[in-house]
């Protein structure tokens, strides 16, 4: 087992002295992509030096377009995808270089919930066996007590009696996602990485699952790293949010201020593009032009400059670093202090009424 790393700095909002649950620093994840017909592999930098902190019992949001690397980040910090560099500390243990012992702690204390509930459940297993499997693998409790524990877990996620005898395809989408959550909760984790957990659900069911996530957090004190593209959902759940673009964090901050007063032009664009269920507010013309470039050729300088309406010469050559803002967040933009705050009206766009 590796020695616990020194914690470089307490996360914002955490009591002084307490170490955060997860500490990611300068994480790099590369993908090797085989180009058809070519003999060599191209290296794609899916996550490019991301630092992130998740406190205990809180929800941290992670937003960005598809291709921003947010899902890869989530899997890399659980060591489900190999990292090429950086460090991840989980409950004081270094994760990336962990041996079997430390890895076992991670496999017990950190779990995952996916976007597509039916795909994340083994269709050849009954719900009871699915939820029970982590208990069997980790040898939690004895054989006799496990069915009782499974029953409790299913009860906790609001599944009716008898659900353990069903197959996943016999349940509705919302119920399937409840099963996935029960499985994640089985080894009593301190962290659940939620990768777009409600994106595949109907609106009328989304609220049920979100409410359940909150209830579970209150009851168990579990932390969520909540990955989503829907800003409304993230803002509702997360106290703090990170915005990723092309593998890097471009802005971080308390959700309230981040969505009310987005500093980075990309965050502003995301906020402005989020539709509002109110015909009285006319949407402004889209702020962001074009599309996210391929991670195979990340633009030089500020990686966002190709789509930024404010880009200057400096942005094309010099890489901006994540700099602190007065409201406790951080932004990676050369121009954030001089930019017009017009887009900040996007903050009010989000509020429904």
């Amino acid at each position, binding site marked *: 087992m590796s020695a616990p790393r020194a914690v470089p700095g307490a996360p914002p909002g955490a009591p002084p002295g307490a170490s955060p649950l997860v500490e990611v620093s300068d994480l790099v994840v590369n993908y090797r992509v085989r180009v058809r*017909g070519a003999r060599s592999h191209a290296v794609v930098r899916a996550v490019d030096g991301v630092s992130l902190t998740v406190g205990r019992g809180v929800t941290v949001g992670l937003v960005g377009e598809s291709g921003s690397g947010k899902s890869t980040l989530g899997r890399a910090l659980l060591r489900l995808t190999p990292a090429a560099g950086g460090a991840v500390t989980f409950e004081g243990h270094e994760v990336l270089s962990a041996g079997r012992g430390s890895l076992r702690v991670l496999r017990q204390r950190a779990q995952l919930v996916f976007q597509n509930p039916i795909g994340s459940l083994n269709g050849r297993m009954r719900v009871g066996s699915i939820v029970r499997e982590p208990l069997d693998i980790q040898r939690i409790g004895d054989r006799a007590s496990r069915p009782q524990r499974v029953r409790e877990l299913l009860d906790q996620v609001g599944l009716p009696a008898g659900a353990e005898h069903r197959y996943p395809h016999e349940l509705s989408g919302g119920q399937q996602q409840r099963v996935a959550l029960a499985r994640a909760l089985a080894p009593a984790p301190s962290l659940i990485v939620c990768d777009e957990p409600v994106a595949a659900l109907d609106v009328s069911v989304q609220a049920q699952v979100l409410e359940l996530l909150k209830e579970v957090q209150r009851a168990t004190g579990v932390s969520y790293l909540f990955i989503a593209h829907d800003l409304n959902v993230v803002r509702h759940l997360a106290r703090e949010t990170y915005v990723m673009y092309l593998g890097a964090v471009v802005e971080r901050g308390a959700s309230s201020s981040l969505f009310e007063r987005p500093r980075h032009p990309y965050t502003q664009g995301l906020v402005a593009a989020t539709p509002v269920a109110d015909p009285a507010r006319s949407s402004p013309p889209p702020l962001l032009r074009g599309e996210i470039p391929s991670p195979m050729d990340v633009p030089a300088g500020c990686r966002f400059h190709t789509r930024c309406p404010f880009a200057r010469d400096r942005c094309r050559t010099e890489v901006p670093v994540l700099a602190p803002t007065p409201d406790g967040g951080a932004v990676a933009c050369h121009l954030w202090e001089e930019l017009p705050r017009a887009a900040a009206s996007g903050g009010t766009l989000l509020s429904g009424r």
Partner: protein
Amino acid sequence: MWRFALVRSGQLLLTLLLASIAVFLVIQHAPGDPAQVQLGLTATPAQIAVERQKLGLDASILHRYLIWATQVLHLNLGKSFTTGLPVTSTVVTAFGYTLRLDVVAIVLGLVLGLPLGLVAALRRGSWADTAISAFAALGLSVPVFALGTLLVLVFAVHFRVMPAAGAGVPGQSLLSALHFLWLPAVTLAIPFAAVLARYVRIELGEAMGEPYVLTARSLGLPRRTVIANAWRNAVIPTITVMGIQVGRLLAGALITETVFSYPGIGYLTVQSIQSLDYPVVEGVLLLGAAVFLLVMFVVDLVVGLANPRLRVQVR
């Protein structure tokens, strides 16, 4: 595309090399001492030892392979144990007969299989589809030797309109050569057509269910164009399957040629194995593998050309 072709050629050469090693090893380990076989049962041990040396059987296996491979590259495969004729010319002559038979069979198979597959794919669930599917299933179920024998029984024995065996005499007219080809060609063509019909039905049927077909219809394109567009997608996997079938035929239709005692590669293969004529066995195995691999190579290139993802890299 060029890079793809280059890589694929490299693979072809490598597989050919491995194939030659396999043939060599099989022959080396085959029961029966080649020296003994060469000299006959009356030979004394001393004579056999001399013969073994002459044949190079004492050297190391790598050495023997290299000698053997050099000879193969010079197209020198020795002489047949049974006829005493050079293996190369024996095999080439037989291959000529096989080629002639296969061309007729492939044309017949295409003429029969393609339209049947098209009709079945475009009229899914109709009685025509059911009938064609039944034909395809039967064509694949009936063993070739059974089909051939039954054809002989009906057309050669019962009606006496076709010859039961052989390929006629050298130098005969095209018409009389064809006369000998009909029955074996039909025997080969029916399973070929069955495979083809089945694949066209599956692939085209699948393509017709793709979203782009819905798009094309929503844009008002006529049915003919919609089908033609879908076909351009369906034809790519169909070519591969067709290629495998053609490759098998060219490598020697063992059973059909045996049924009709047709002097092609397949018949030669069976006969040389039964008479333990190893030089000829070597020859037919090598030629069969080479032809089959070459056909698959060509098919891959054709499929590559038909696939825009590969073609685009030429630009």
